[in-house]
């Protein structure tokens, strides 16, 4: 057990996977000489050579499409789109090609690739470099979808993704690369597809993923100061996802809030809230709440950007409201 950053953990996962399997190749914009827009692949081209760490032209559809063809024919590519926002350019290859090949071809041709992207707010990168587009992926059968929140998960979920027989969308958060945390390359936090209770509590279930986990954990601490014990669950994988831990928790607490950084309408949080409302109807004390980003493009002003997505303070206030039915000042 040691400490590492989220960036170092992802980099180490790539190094270990490439050393273990010569079929693993990286392909993307600036992954080689530049070392990755956020420094994740720094030094890898020197370690593994330009045939395995492939700097691609700015051609997102072809980057993903090339990775698909390589995956169909024996390589295990890790394609990288610099920002999840650029998935819009490549969405045909992601949703119509990678996701559907195994099915359309009757199980003959799988696409064992990982598509790394990073998303989220926090750097005033504005409307085309700050989005959280995981709902697009979750809505597409045939894709696995992973959004690690912790350093150890960043390593282990990526290593696991590189053993999956199907395409894995691996979305990092630009605000987490410098996060420090416990790192044990020999011990995963938990199984693939299994949400984990990151903090136990009896009064309220807060479900989050990616960077919002950390906001939720901070909120849980301040809620505890006020006598409310929140259970915080980290989804980790959005597909596959075992609903069991969520249902078990909510049937104990009777109250739940699902937190996302994405725009709320049509979000992953909406889907989780719907499932929990269906599965826990008789146990609910309150409606299952969604707490997400405002339904707006991400604005560039730091104040507006911060104000448009949930924070620890907001999660605290809404959690308290949900448990006590006393509206916070800002809602009065």
């Amino acid at each position, binding site marked *: 057990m040691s400490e590492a950053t989220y960036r170092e953990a992802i980099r180490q996962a790539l190094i270990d996977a490439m050393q273990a399997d010569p*079929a693993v*190749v990286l392909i993307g914009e600036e992954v080689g000489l530049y070392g990755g827009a956020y420094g994740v692949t720094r030094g890898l081209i020197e370690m593994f050579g330009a*045939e*395995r760490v*492939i700097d*691609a*032209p700015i*051609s997102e*559809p*072809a980057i*993903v*499409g*090339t*990775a*698909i*063809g*390589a*995956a*169909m*024919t*024996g*390589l295990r*590519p890790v394609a990288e789109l610099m920002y999840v926002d650029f998935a819009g350019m490549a969405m*045909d*290859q992601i949703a*119509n*090609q990678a996701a559907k*090949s*195994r*099915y*359309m*071809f*009757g*199980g*003959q*041709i*799988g696409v064992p690739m990982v598509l790394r992207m990073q998303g989220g707010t926090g750097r005033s990168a504005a409307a085309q470099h700050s989005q959280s587009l995981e709902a697009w992926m979750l809505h597409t*059968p*045939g894709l*696995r979808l992973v959004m690690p929140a912790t350093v150890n998960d960043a390593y282990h979920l990526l290593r696991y993704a590189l053993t*999956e*027989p*199907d395409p894995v969308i691996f979305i990092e958060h630009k605000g987490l690369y410098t996060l420090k945390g416990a790192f044990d390359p020999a011990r995963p936090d938990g199984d693939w*597809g299994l949400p984990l209770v990151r903090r136990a509590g009896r009064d309220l279930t807060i479900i989050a993923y990616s960077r919002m986990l950390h906001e939720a954990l901070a909120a849980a601490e301040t809620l505890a100061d006020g006598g409310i014990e929140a259970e915080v669950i980290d989804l980790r994988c959005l597909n*596959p996802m075992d609903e069991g831990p969520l249902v078990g928790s909510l049937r104990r607490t009777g109250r739940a809030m699902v937190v996302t950084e994405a725009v709320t309408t049509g979000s992953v949080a909406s889907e989780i809230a719907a499932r929990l409302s*269906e*599965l*826990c*109807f*008789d*146990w609910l004390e309150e409606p299952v709440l969604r707490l997400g980003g405002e339904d707006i493009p991400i604005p560039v002003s730091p104040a507006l950007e911060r104000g448009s997505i949930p924070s620890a303070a907001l999660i605290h206030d809404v959690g308290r409201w949900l448990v006590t039915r006393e509206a916070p000042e800002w809602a009065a």
Partner: protein
Amino acid sequence: MTAITPPANTALLARYRMMRRIRSFEERVGELFLKGQSAGSMLHLSIGEEAVVGLADAMALGDSFTTHHRGHGVFLARGADPKRMMAEIAGKEEGYCRGKGGSMHIADRALGHLGANAIVGGGIPHVVGAGLSSRNRGGGAIAVAFFGDGAMSQGILYETMNMAVLWRLPVIFCCINNQYGMGTRVDRSAGHRDFPARARAFGLNAARADGADVEAVAEAAQGLVTDARGGAPGFLEIDAYRFYGHARMDKSPYRTPEEEAEGRSRDPLANARARLLAGGLAEVEELDRIDAAAGVEMDAALAHAIAAPAPGLPTMFEDVFAPGTPAPRPQAERLAAILSEGRRA
């Protein structure tokens, strides 16, 4: 990896036989639809485009390829079993793709067919990936993307041509120009119609061959394939004519009977037959026997497809993900979890 080149007379006769089989197959696909036995009406016949056999012949076992929505002919030319093809087009379990892909998504890993694609240009980058595999893993295989003139307007074609040249990949881009993207003739979609010139501008070896002459296609293909195996990617335009409408429901109101007659006179099958006879390379009886045998073979494929059983309903949940990994949950199970176990007693 090198394809064995048979003597010219044998080669042309073999190509005639393959082109006849393709045409007979496509005619039976039309019958399948008319009998109401096809899975839908999204059936795009490649009649008139059979000279693609010239490029398919230049490929070797171990090479891979992708096709577009009008790819029956290419697949047959690369060795497909017409029974399994027809069964797939009819949406049957024993089809190549268990009745999940159909005419527009047929594939066969064993023959290197990485998939037919119904998104114009969608399968083109996959051959660049296959070329990358070949480069990194060795073995000398090439990968060929077959697509129509419609894909000449898709950006991904140019992105991938650039990558193929940049990375010196063993790849060939083959545009089967049948003059029509659905109802739009190529002179209404292409501002500059010299397609090989576009490819040359990206640094590819490029050629155009007469789609009415399978030998011309074969000759052009041979050089491109040899160069591609050496890491110099190529582009081949096969200049053909789509004899029938876009799909089975299309009566081609956007073109004149005169144009169609002229186009259909550019018939690679009739031309090959005439050349075989004129050159004394085959007797009429021999060619008639080939024609009859193709008819019998494809009749059998048609009857087989019609008789084959439909897939069982539970198979719809298979193949979304690999076996042994979490599969999609059937709706009935989900509802039972909510409305039965999911309520307090």
